[in-house]
């Protein structure tokens, strides 16, 4: 569920980190007006509760030997309210990345969006729209199931879109999408059951908690919901850029090259040597030319170069290790 660094290109990683950082900053600023210092302990402990809750597993039906466990994102959003819930889940994802190395550092932005922000807000929105203030048991449970499944499905779709936008996928886009949707559907069902069961139990022990948010009365304004859905739509629509063709874009078509007209003479030619040198410099040193990672074709000469590189790296590591040993021995002698 947590993406590793290798599923992303640097451009997509930076973009999603920016989106996640901006989103979190906005949420923190809005929520800190409502969340007094009294609620901070509660939010911290709720985050720790999510960690502990993920250890409690139960046997899955029909699959002997496998057990499912609760993720808890939608539960938190329903109980704590959307803003505090989003902050708590994002903090859980950050700690999972930093302390438990679950998910890469550059993929942190994507993980925060896919697991924390989008499922939290979307799940809360679905839950609220289905219950619409009427809290009969059946209606609440249906709302929770629906919220869990939809939230996790959308998170999975975002993973696929981000991986495809990075150009890392070798399998066809639709294959990966269908696989992820299927897997996350099953996970969503399990999560929905667990959420329903836990909230049913809480309703017996502490009735009245499910109907209202604990941390202040933060109302999710209609505009905020529309903006969130709009951003999600843009991200989804960006996925359609994968169907983009390799033909030159409109500007290049007008003056540079037309693949369908082989006799076309380029209308622009620039003989300035400075420009040519600048172009050559940029082509040589840009990390992602033409939005792809370039491959070098190896020959026998590069074979020896790569040999030298690997041997050199190995020797350097051995030297560093030796130096570490010597320094350690000297420090022991000193103490």
């Amino acid at each position, binding site marked *: 569920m947590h993406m*590793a*660094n*290798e599923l992303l290109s*640097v451009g997509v990683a930076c973009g999603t980190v920016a989106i996640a950082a901006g989103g*979190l*900053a906005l949420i*923190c*600023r809005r*929520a*800190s007006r409502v*969340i007094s*210092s009294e609620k*901070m*302990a*509660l*939010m*911290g*402990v709720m985050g*720790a*509760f999510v*960690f*502990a*809750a993920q*250890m409690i*597993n*139960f046997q*899955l039906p029909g699959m002997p030997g496998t057990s499912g466990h*609760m993720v808890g994102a939608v539960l938190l959003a329903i109980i704590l309210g959307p803003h505090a819930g989003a*902050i708590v889940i*994002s*903090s859980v994802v*950050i700690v999972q990345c*930093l*302390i438990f*190395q679950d998910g890469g*550092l*550059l993929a942190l932005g994507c993980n925060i969006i896919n697991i924390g922000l989008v499922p939290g807000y979307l799940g809360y929105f679905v839950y609220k729209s289905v219950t619409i203030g009427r809290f009969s048991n059946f209606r609440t449970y249906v709302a929770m199931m629906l919220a869990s499944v939809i939230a996790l499905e959308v998170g999975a779709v975002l993973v696929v879109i981000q991986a495809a936008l990075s150009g890392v996928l*070798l399998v066809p886009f639709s294959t990966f999408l269908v696989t992820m949707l299927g897997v996350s559907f099953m996970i969503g069902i399990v999560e929905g*059951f*667990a959420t329903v*069961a836990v909230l049913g*139990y*809480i309703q017996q022990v502490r009735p009245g908690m499910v109907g209202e948010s604990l941390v202040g009365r933060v109302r999710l304004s209609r505009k905020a919901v529309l903006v969130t859905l709009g951003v999600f739509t843009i991200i989804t629509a960006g996925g359609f850029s994968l169907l983009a063709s390799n033909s030159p874009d409109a500007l290049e078509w007008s003056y540079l090259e037309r693949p369908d007209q082989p006799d076309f003479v380029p209308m622009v030619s620039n003989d300035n040597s400075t420009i040519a040198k600048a172009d050559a410099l940029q082509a040589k040193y840009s990390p*992602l030319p033409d939005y792809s*990672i370039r491959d*070098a074709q*190896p020959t*026998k000469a590069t*074979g*020896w170069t*790569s*040999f*030298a*590189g*690997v041997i050199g*790296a*190995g020797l350097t590591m051995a030297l*560093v290790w030796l130096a*570490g040993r010597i320094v*350690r021995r000297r420090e022991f002698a000193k103490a």
Partner: protein
Amino acid sequence: MHHAHIDRFAYQDSPVHRLDSRVKFLSVVIFSAVVLSLPVSSFSILACYAVGPFSILVLGRIPLRFAFKQVLLVSPFILVLALSCPFYDRNPVDTAFGPFVWEISAGWLRCFSILGKFIVTMLALIGLVSTTRFADLLGGLDKLAVPRLLIIQLGFLYRYIFVLIDRAHHILRARAGRKLRNLGFATELKTASSMLGSLFVRSLDTAENINIAMQARGFDGEWHGVRKLQFRWGDGVFVIVSIVYMLGLYFYSKGV
């Protein structure tokens, strides 16, 4: 209760432990970005880039076996992705190493590239986390303009994870002591849900008690760290060395 903390090596002392946490965090992020943007076919350059995290781990006195065990723990998803590459890309390419030239499919090249980059970036992250106390890391992130509310949340979360994991262990052991056979999905779910519910209610009570204790000691929403963050000359040396290292390797790889 004794916990195998993931960051148990963070409380040792070494030159790397004494570095400023902001410097370490930013260098790991930039290093990961640079390693990720390497072209697929350059393994020698990847090996050269691997020297960086390796040095950090050695100088920081982190056992390498521990680091590789951590890498193994988080590798399943990446293994699936990497091992699917040879099935989908069967274009033959020529690879050369030393005097040997042989033909391999581009999918295998991609597979090893993904695995290599994964190991290198994971080792860098493990180096960061194992040489930095979490409180210092949070203080550094605070100075890097992360929202204060998030920092406080992370601080509390880290403090109480291990307390609640202990409670969850107790509950799990109680269940193991009372359960003799598989009881079917509905009963299992009900049991698990009551375990979760009781954990949740106890967490709420704990949070209330913590809040009252903090209010009684004058908590007003500000999180004060004990150690001050200072940018010392050791940090300057580290920054210069890592910039020279990464830039040097970058231009070397372009020149090759």
